């Protein structure tokens, strides 16, 4: 069984891993020259299905709850299981109650518990919600780590793949190109983020700051880096971040901890999330073509489950006869 995967984002790489683990011959082609820069590269890397359930429908929780295990299994050492802390300024305490009513899998904590969890936030918030079962990873390290592992497993990669490149023959083709797939029912939701560097604050886990207009999260990464994200704009343009978005994101980071005001702004990033109208992902099959898309803001959270579904579909239909049958259905 030979499978050709289009796209080296989180959907393509997780599918490659599922297939290669089962012994399929996998080639990944990617039109970019490297992994860096795609939508997955700009992700927060939060594996937070209980928090996400606040604004997402149930499949995000049911498909995402095993994601941390999948990543830990695929890339030992990458997953940090310190949970998620959700805070709100005293003035917006009602937002915390609302969040709590919509989510599950958390316990309310007081100022003392907040200080114990995140000493640098001591005295800043009176109440929070602690989602102990959640996790996070560094998406860039995870993408590069997965690619390296896949190469060792015998998966071939071709970057800079264009229309002039030589075609590959395969039993199955998988389209994992996200917004570039240009499906008519797919829309882009622009997300903008910042990376700050400061040694004056340290956080053990992603912290979400609730605000009626601009909810943000701050995800700690190694090297005193913090990813601050992310805007949600109904737009498929990938152009540079706007001044307004920088101001709003910085404002929110500053509200979380004033020391972020002195941080270095080392990077801004823009990604376009692929989403269907219900903001839920799909695995779709047409003959010997399959596509995974619509991961929206849940790439690292939902890609494992979608990859498993797609891989089952692919490996469950190995004979040519069945493929022909599917194609004519």
């Amino acid at each position: 069984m030979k499978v050709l995967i289009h796209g080296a984002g989180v959907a393509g790489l997780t599918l490659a891993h599922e297939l290669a683990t089962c012994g399929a011959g996998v080639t990944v082609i990617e039109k970019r020259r490297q992994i860096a820069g795609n939508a997955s590269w700009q992700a927060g890397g939060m594996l937070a299905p209980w928090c996400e359930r606040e604004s997402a429908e149930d499949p995000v929780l049911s498909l995402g709850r095993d994601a941390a295990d999948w990543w830990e299994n695929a890339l030992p050492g990458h997953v940090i299981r310190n949970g998620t802390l959700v805070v709100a300024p005293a003035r917006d305490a009602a937002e915390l109650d609302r969040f709590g009513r919509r989510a599950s899998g958390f316990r309310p904590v007081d100022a003392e518990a907040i200080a114990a969890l995140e000493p640098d936030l001591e005295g800043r918030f009176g109440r929070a919600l602690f989602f102990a079962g959640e996790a996070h990873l560094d998406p860039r390290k995870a993408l590069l780590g997965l690619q390296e592992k896949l190469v060792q497993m015998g998966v071939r990669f071709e970057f800079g793949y264009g229309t002039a490149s030589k075609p590959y023959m395969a039993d199955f083709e998988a389209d994992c190109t996200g917004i570039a797939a240009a499906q008519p029912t797919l829309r882009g939701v622009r997300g903008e983020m910042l990376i700050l560097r400061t040694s004056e604050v340290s956080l053990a886990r992603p912290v979400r700051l609730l605000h009626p207009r601009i909810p943000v999260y701050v995800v700690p990464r190694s090297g005193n880096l913090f990813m601050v994200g992310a805007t949600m704009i109904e737009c498929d343009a990938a152009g540079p971040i706007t001044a307004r978005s920088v101001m709003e994101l910085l404002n929110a980071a500053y509200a979380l901890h004033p020391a972020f005001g002195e941080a270095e702004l080392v990077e801004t990033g823009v990604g376009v999330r692929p989403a269907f109208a219900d903001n839920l992902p799909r695995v779709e099959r047409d003959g010997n073509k399959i596509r995974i898309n619509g991961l929206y803001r849940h790439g690292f959270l939902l890609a494992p489950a979608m990859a498993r579904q797609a891989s089952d579909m692919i490996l469950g239909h190995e004979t040519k006869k069945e493929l022909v049958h599917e194609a004519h259905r």
Partner: protein
Amino acid sequence: MLELYGQQVSSRLLLGTALYPSPAIMAEAIKASGVDIVTVSLRRETSGGKAGGQFWSLIQSLGVHVLPNTAGCHSVKEAVTTARMAREVFATNWIKLEVIGNHDTLQPDVFGLVEAAKILSAEGFEVFPYTTDDLVVAERLLDAGCKVLMPWCAPIGSARGPQNLDALRSLRGHFPGVPLIVDAGIGRPSHAATVMELGYDAVLLNTAVAKAGDPVAMAAAFGKAVEAGRQAFLAGPLEPRDMAVPSTPVIGMAAFS
């Protein structure tokens, strides 16, 4: 039937299109509430790219009137530019005019609002100004060419409901012929019914539906409340009294025993 700038509209509820869990849920909420008009924020939904692409197609497919708004504009110039862009993108002269005076409270800058309304009305726009409940400002907006007024009843997204019923009543009393739409601050269907009972022509809201536990069910509830409030207004509600008044006569009651 309600007429706004010559356009007959059958529903007296207007819904915003932001903050829903997904566009699919937004579309269902719009259908469930039976609204005729939705507001769309140009800045957020369509900036750059293919003018909102899929999101915009979805709204178009719902067959409702679109009232573009200048949400998030803080100056006259910004609001006027956004309005002009909106006219091009949405092919309508309608514009919900917001000039925000305070970033935190989102209170309208009524001075900038009047100025922007003047400029836009002169350019042929049909302006729906988001304003406070101040009578004099309302007069200035009408002078500026507005033929519809949209006073708040509480700050945007606050869900506090009518904070100053006297001001709303007085506005209604002063401008009997002007379509008045309560925009902003509505949190519950009972709030919507309350302002409709005062004789307001319509209600515009977004957060109260989009951020409800079940936005579709809440949209339907608001549709009913607006309808009920309107019917009650037309039916002539009973004025409150200080004294108890028995609903059956006391004098001349038949004596049993």
